[in-house]
């Protein structure tokens, strides 16, 4: 590949005035933090706020030793887009699109309707038809956002505050789907390419599932554990209304049981006590779920690299920025390096290199049997390619100025290469670990202590079957013991899962229900193009849900 064709060159030229190959530059001449428009904005605002509240706040001059900006405070390009922004714009608190992505995941609960329908028919002798289902869905779309359906004197929720709340259904049965009011249906045939739709419908069969989206406002005020409860309460009340049931008879409890336990699919499982969070929190979202939540695979099914990179961006925001960077630590530290996997087209370049290498040398994706020869060859070649780019382009080395950034990006490409070749994500993660060991010996350095501890013992747990280590890779996540502090890894890991399936043309990676649930145009965040959406958030062009303008004083 010629130098100019490297995918990251454009971003490097925008970041620095020197050529990307230049090893020398000047420092201490950039007017410190004042070189950044965003930091100037923060400073001016902070001065006003300090007057208003009587307490000083943001002040970049208190930085230890000397203020930030002794070198170029570089802009970042959202990979796969033409959007450039400042690093500050990618902090989750400064980016409404990132927040909405997380809210849209957390406020989602999938719940089967078949158990409830069986109770209605066999125990209560009620008739269930497409008409009664439509009636039920109309009622639930009133009740789920906070409307009363049974009680005669109730406080209700202002619909303007919860306009993003609704319920839809899906089924693998085309005939049944066609009989349900289309406003309530996630139409698999319309949302997915034909081959993917076929796979998904076969997996779902004749079952009917409802996808409840609780209000973003509830997600902001409560937690992930609220969601199934909120859904179950309103589902039960709606069943009473739709099928004219006695409020409180034992059978009604079955609806709540089905919605809370028997037929519920939450996006994340509970986390252990030492990191205690309820279900539907980022720590419990498996890698395979984040891959399925991302909808890039139905937009460009023939570009498995692009699909994997889009998944990785969501993994970076969810796991690294929300979970590790905020739930587990807080503060400012994690944005700066979590963004390396989805900015400046660096990982894109390494990933397409890996894909080309596999295609040219082995002929196809998803069909090569995993073997040591294959893993050693692809992992080593891709890792050395990535590492050499840092050495050939000092501007690139400066872009990823932390070792954890470089380690994540290089190993991600190595893992994706093997996933693509074999269609096996566990072989993919094994390649990741070989890459990390090679990286450590090449540069004589890797990440920070908390970063590379896992990578130095990861080879041995990649194919382990021991009960506390042996989990198919798709089902791992930060809830997997050795990944509990695995900062900066899970983003790429979700891409390694995705690549194994994208290369084979699979419609989903881990759970077809999750994949279908997010094939929904009514969602606020655009799960088909997450990187573009994050970019819009950075440019302040993304409109989130959950705003409170209806109930606060106007300015």
């Amino acid at each position, binding site marked *: 590949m010629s130098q100019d064709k490297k995918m990251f060159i454009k971003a490097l030229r925008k970041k620095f005035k*020197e050529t990307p190959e*230049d*090893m*020398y*530059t*000047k*420092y*201490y001449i950039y007017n410190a933090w004042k070189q950044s428009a965003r930091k100037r904005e923060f400073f001016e605002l902070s001065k006003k706020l300090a007057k208003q509240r009587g307490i000083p706040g943001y002040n970049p001059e208190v930085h*230890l*030793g*000397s203020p*930030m900006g*002794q*070198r170029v405070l570089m802009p970042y390009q959202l990979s796969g887009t033409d959007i450039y922004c400042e690093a500050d714009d990618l902090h989750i608190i400064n980016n409404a699109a990132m927040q909405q992505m997380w809210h849209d995941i957390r406020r989602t609960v999938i719940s089967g309707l078949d158990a409830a329908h069986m109770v209605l028919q066999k125990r209560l002798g009620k008739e269930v038809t497409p008409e009664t289902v439509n009636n039920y869905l109309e009622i639930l779309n009133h009740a789920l956002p906070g409307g009363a359906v049974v009680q005669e004197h109730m406080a209700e929720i202002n619909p303007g505050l919860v306009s993003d709340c609704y319920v839809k259904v899906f089924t693998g049965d085309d005939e049944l789907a066609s009989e349900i009011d289309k406003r309530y249906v996630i139409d698999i045939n319309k949302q997915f390419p034909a081959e993917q739709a076929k796979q998904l419908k076969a997996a779902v069969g004749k079952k009917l599932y409802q996808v409840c989206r609780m209000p973003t406002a509830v997600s902001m005020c409560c937690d992930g554990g609220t969601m199934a409860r909120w859904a179950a309460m309103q589902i039960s009340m709606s069943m009473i209304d739709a099928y004219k049931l006695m409020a409180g008879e034992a059978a009604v409890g079955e609806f709540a049981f089905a919605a809370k336990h028997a037929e519920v699919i939450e996006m994340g499982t509970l986390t252990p006590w030492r990191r205690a969070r309820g279900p539907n929190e980022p720590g419990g979202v498996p890698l395979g779920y984040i891959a399925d939540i991302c909808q890039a695979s139905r937009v460009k099914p023939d570009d498995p690299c692009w699909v994997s990179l889009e998944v990785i961006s969501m993994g970076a925001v969810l796991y690294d920025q929300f979970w590790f960077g905020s739930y587990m630590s807080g503060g400012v530290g994690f944005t700066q390096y979590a963004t390396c996997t989805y900015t400046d087209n660096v990982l894109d370049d390494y990933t397409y290199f890996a894909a080309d290498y596999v295609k040219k040398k082995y002929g196809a994706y998803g069909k090569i049997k995993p073997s*040591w020869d294959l893993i*050693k060859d692809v992992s*080593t070649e891709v890792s*050395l390619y990535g*590492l*050499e780019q*840092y*050495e*050939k382009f*000092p*501007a690139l*080395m*400066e872009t*990823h*100025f*932390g*070792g*954890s950034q*470089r*380690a994540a990006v290089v190993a991600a490409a190595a893992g994706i290469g093997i996933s693509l070749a074999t269609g096996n994500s566990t072989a993919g993660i*094994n390649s990741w*670990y*070989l890459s990390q*060991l*090679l990286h*450590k*010996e*090449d*540069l*004589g*350095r*890797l*990440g*920070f*202590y908390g970063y590379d501890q896992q990578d130095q*013992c990861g*080879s*041995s*747990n*990649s*194919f*382990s*079957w*021991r009960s506390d*280590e042996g989990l198919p890779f798709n089902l791992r996540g930060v809830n997997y013991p050795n990944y509990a502090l695995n900062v900066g890894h899970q983003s790429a890991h979700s891409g390694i899962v995705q690549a194994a399936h994208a290369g084979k043309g699979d419609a989903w990676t881990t759970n077809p229900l999750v994949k279908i649930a997010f094939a929904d145009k009514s969602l606020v965040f655009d799960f088909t193009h997450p990187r573009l959406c994050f970019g819009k958030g950075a440019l302040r062009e993304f409109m989130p849900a959950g705003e409170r303008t209806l109930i606060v004083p106007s300015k």
Partner: protein
Amino acid sequence: MTNYKPQFYPGTTTPSKNRRKYMDPSYKLQKLRTISDDDLVRIMGHRVPGEAYKSTHPPLEETGEPACPIREMVTPTPGAKAGDRIRYIQLTDSVYIAPVAPYVRAWMYHNRWRGTDVGVLSGRVPLEMRERDLEKVAKELVETEIFDPARTGIRGATVHGHALRLDENGMMFDAQRRYIFNKKTKEVDYVKDQVGVPLDKPIPLGKPIAEDELRKRTSEFHASFEPFRKDQELIEWVQRIHMLRTMAGNDPESIKGV
């Protein structure tokens, strides 16, 4: 085991050979510069030159030791014996063929000195020891061939710079500007201590090591002069370790003939 001879490190290239050399405690590190004890104490910033060592416990001979087979086997270092507090020196190594890379530094510390507590990050290596022991080791760290005033930095905080391009004088970036290139003397002067507190007077640490000399001494690979991919022996060693670890995690019985 009596005939066991440590091999320290595999590889056929200059960086591998230098890693092997620096890790071998029988190899005497070559002294390239002199820094007075007092100046080193000033740069580290833990005590004023001449000030007594602060202690966290009385000398061991006063406190007495509980019956413990480990304590009987391990002779305390002078700092431990005296009850010194633990203090640190932290070094940053540029990726542009500095003499030592962070992991090499840690391996070297463990092989060469006792009583070390080392951490390795991509851009810095903290070394914590009893204070008087630390000062002795720090002297060797700064005066010998494993230190280049331009591409090795003594930094307690705000350490980033290892991966940044070099400045117009070939110096590694330091946001706190703890050291400056003195254009008159062509030497590097430290003007602040490890955490950036200004020193009363500049402390010269000598001239940067010349590029061709660095290439001979470095333990870092770089595509521009000695690429990692050239060291096939080292690459195969890494691949073998990875393969054995993987197999051991899956089914240790499957490993034969190791």
